[in-house]
């Protein structure tokens, strides 16, 4: 028998509630002029969360369909592209990073090479000029370009 996903989730959330409550209880408050203070509300929240999660443990809903292996690989690939996009965003500048990010994303979403290349050029260059020239927003041009300009 498969373990209901909601049951696992319920236990995980009870763990989260406990963590949240302990963190709140350990807050060190130097001076407080009010009766409630910053601890009470988070602790009440943890109790509510724990109670709701307990219901989930005892009455789990239906399992949704979860991603298979191929999809997980793709999900990680998309996330990887976005992380690298963020990492290089200011370093290499908007146009070049956007070009490669769009190229990678269009390929992950199964466009042909031709379409992917056209989309990448149009989106990278088009959005750069739309935002910088059209809307007056400054985008990172990249450190490496600075030498040429």
């Amino acid at each position, binding site marked *: 028998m498969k373990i209901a996903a909601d049951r696992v989730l319920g236990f995980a959330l009870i763990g989260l509630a406990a963590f949240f409550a302990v963190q709140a209880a350990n807050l060190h408050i130097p001076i407080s002029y009010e009766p409630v203070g910053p601890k009470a509300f988070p602790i009440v929240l943890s109790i509510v969360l724990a109670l709701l999660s307990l219901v989930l443990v005892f009455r789990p809903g239906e399992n949704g369909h979860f991603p298979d292996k191929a999809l997980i690989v793709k999900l990680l690939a*998309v996330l990887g592209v976005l992380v690298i996009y963020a990492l290089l965003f200011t370093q290499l500048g908007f146009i070049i990073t956007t070009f490669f990010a769009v190229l990678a994303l269009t390929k992950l979403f199964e466009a042909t090479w031709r379409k992917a290349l056209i989309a990448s050029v149009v989106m990278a260059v088009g959005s750069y000029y739309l935002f910088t020239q059209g809307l007056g927003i400054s985008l990172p041009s990249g450190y490496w370009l600075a030498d040429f300009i």
Partner: protein
Amino acid sequence: MFDFLIDGFGVALTPLNLGLAFLGAMLGTLFGALPGIGPINGIAILMPLAYTLGLPAESALILLAGIYTGSEYGGRMSSILLNVPGDAGAVMTTLDGYPMAKKGLAGPALGLSAVSSFVGATIAIIGLTLFAPLLARVAVMFGPAEFFALMVFAFASMAVMMGKDPIKTGIGAVLGVMIAMVGVDSGTGVLRYTFGMAELYDGIDFVVMIIGLFAISEILLMLEHANRPSNESDEMPPLGRVMVSLKEVLHCKWTMLRCGLIGFIVGVLPGTGASVAGAVAYTTEKRISDKDGTFGTGNMRGLAAPESANNAAAAGSFVPMLTLGIPGSGTTAVLLGALMLYNITPGPLLFTERPEVAGGLIASLYVGNIMLLALNLPLAGVFARVLTIPRWVLVPAIAILAFIGVYQLHSDLMAIYLMLIIGVFGYLLRKLGFSLAPVILGYVLGGLMEDNLRRALSISGGDTGILWQSGISLGLWIAAAALLILPWLVPKLLPSNSTEKNKQGA
């Protein structure tokens, strides 16, 4: 007493604001039409741009509200043509809209639904004009205790009305409130849940939160459907004439009026939005006018009902947002956050202190609604073509806009990483059967809820009795309790009716 509206038209009819209302209507219809991109995503992506362009608060709000109302119009297109709701509000539109399109009546279905949307929205905007100033006058009497009770009521109505699973709605809302706890506690200066990271001292930023939660998780979710053939155009039924005869409109006039009213009322209730309104209106209309059992097979009234209601709900949900500062739906929660970017806290004083914002918004809804009808009747065919945009174009476009938006506001890569982390969190929640609207409502209301609780108890010196001593707050507590108990109690008392109740909840 309608001075604010006259001033409002003065604001809404300036060339800039007219242009923005038109842009909002266009973009909104587009976002609504694209499956997967609803009003929240559209607003999330454009909000930072509106802010960095230096638009004044009322202009930014006019643009964003235009996107909201526009997407309720646009959501119907993919419902009717492809049987895929373009956004949550248009789920019920598929029931009779798609069968109509199958019968070769796609054009009239688009026309009729545009007219119903217009009628529903008009009713609700008039309701908003009449009702909001009155409610604002009552709301001035609200103290912290009353606001706290009101938020409890908002969460109760959300848990009951929103989504299939009230437990998960509740958990989602609590998670949202918990996220709002991160950062410096305003009362004492104590750091909560920052784990030593300086970037979290100011809390999790609103723009980062919504772009991550909605836009990034949507990108991940779209991956699932990437394998499907993207050229759905060959499935698309021929449009025919995108016009509707006066006879057809008159046939549905009572449906539109009734459901507009229902939609408005549901929209005003805090925590419930267009999707709930569509469902309630459809089931009610089915009971009233489905005499020959043709609802679900392409009945015109079955199409007019949810479309009238979801547009009415969109306008109605501005009532609690503008007068009480409590959003009536997930989308107005995002709009509320947008106002907070401008340091405007909506509430009872908005109509007196910032009449240009409140009046300008309401006036622009009138203007925008007429623009939307004008756009959606003749141009439905053009917008319908948007549905054929493949995902490999959509996804990078969303990613670029998300990055530019967050980078503009923060010029900080940490914010972008945080956005991606929240995106994964949002994706997991959606895969586990949560809807995101309660999370965002919890996030927006959480801080306010704690503040009001603490303020109330400071006033009373720690005596919790203050929370229910006034008539208003006691009434709200009773209403909240009734909302939570009734759906569970009523089917037990009326066993024969229970199946219908279940349908309504779905």
